[in-house]
């Protein structure tokens, strides 16, 4: 009991002597951290206008943040009463340990197959990677939703990175009726693809007859385009194929169903077939 009281008395003396410095140190730390957050936020916003490279912006902002945080910790420690040289030495020592751990264990650390700014598909989620932190990845979908995906989920899932290659293939499959001119349809598809300036000449656009289906002949148009132009080019090509087929008089196939019906008195016989009714849906 006596020793407990003595300890409490010592603590009270310590707080009386160094209390103001401790409080000031805490204020410096808290105020400094809040200010640093604000600075980093505005720096990120301004750098994003100057540079489209999200990874570079992230590196610069994080570097500035680390430097400012070191200054704030040093200032706070000096205010509490620590010697500046010792504080700097401790910070340097901790930094070197952190760097050493990263360097040594880097090969063993799982890395994510994308970086900030890439368009990726993770499972069912398709969007742009905004930031990658230690625990999760922030993904923004094209309809404006923001998802925080845990990194361990990403490492277990199939990830498609649309920025890994510079070009992408457009695949458009259409089905025409059997009574339509197949060669003309192929030519029209080829002309539409070649006439679009976004479609790359190599590999050259190609048209294939894919299948003879129940309702028509399936034809596939294949061409390559720059990754960034993929979506707009695909939509435009689809529209131009439809309009080109219309003004060339080539009809698309629709699912068809033959219905035959007969009554009790008029039983169905091969030589006496009732009228067929075609319902096209």
């Amino acid at each position, binding site marked *: 009991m006596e020793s407990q009281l003595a300890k409490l008395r010592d603590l009270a003396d310590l707080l009386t002597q160094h209390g103001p410095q401790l409080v000031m140190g805490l204020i410096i730390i808290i105020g400094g951290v809040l200010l640093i957050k604000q600075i980093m936020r505005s720096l990120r916003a301004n750098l994003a206008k100057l540079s489209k490279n999200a990874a570079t912006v992230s590196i610069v902002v994080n570097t500035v943040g680390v430097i400012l945080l070191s200054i704030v910790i040093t200032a706070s420690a000096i205010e509490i009463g620590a010697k500046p040289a010792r504080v700097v030495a401790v910070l340097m020592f901790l930094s070197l340990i952190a760097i050493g751990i990263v360097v040594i264990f880097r090969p063993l650390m799982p890395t994510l197959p994308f970086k900030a700014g890439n368009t990726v598909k993770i499972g069912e989620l398709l969007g742009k990677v905004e930031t990658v932190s230690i625990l999760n990845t922030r993904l923004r979908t094209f309809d404006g939703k923001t998802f925080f995906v845990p990194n361990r989920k990403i490492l277990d899932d199939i990830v498609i990175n649309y920025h890994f290659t510079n070009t992408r293939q457009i695949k458009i499959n259409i089905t025409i009726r059997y009574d339509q001119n197949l060669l003309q349809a192929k030519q029209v598809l080829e002309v539409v693809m*070649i*006439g679009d*300036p976004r479609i790359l*000449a190599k590999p050259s656009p190609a048209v294939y007859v894919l299948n003879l289906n129940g309702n028509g002949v399936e034809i596939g148009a294949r061409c390559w385009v720059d990754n960034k132009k993929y979506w707009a080019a695909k939509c435009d090509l689809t529209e131009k194929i439809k309009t080109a087929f*219309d*003004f060339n008089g080539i009809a698309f196939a629709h699912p068809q169903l033959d219905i035959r019906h007969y009554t009790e008195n008029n039983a169905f016989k091969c030589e006496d077939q009732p009228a067929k009714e075609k319902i096209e849906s």
Partner: protein
Amino acid sequence: MKIAEGLKIIENQWIQKPKGFRVKYQKFVNLERLTEYSPGKEDSLLDSDVTAWRYAWKLFMSTRSKSNDIAEGEFINIGVVDESDHPVHYYVTGKNQVLNPK
């Protein structure tokens, strides 16, 4: 003739692949008929004729006058051209198209 040479002939002579598209139009300014382009000749071309025709149509809808006379600032004879100023067929009809011909 080698296949590569044959392919080059096909590439150069069968289908003309434009480098891009512009909307060409005329308008009356101070009783003078001016021909202008959008995007301008110094600017980059549009890479989609679908976009170019849609843009042309919006310009027509925004500037047309209800009367047969040409109003000040009205865009007339609106069409889409390629980088060499040749008219580009309207992809819906496969023929040349001029919006608001006057």
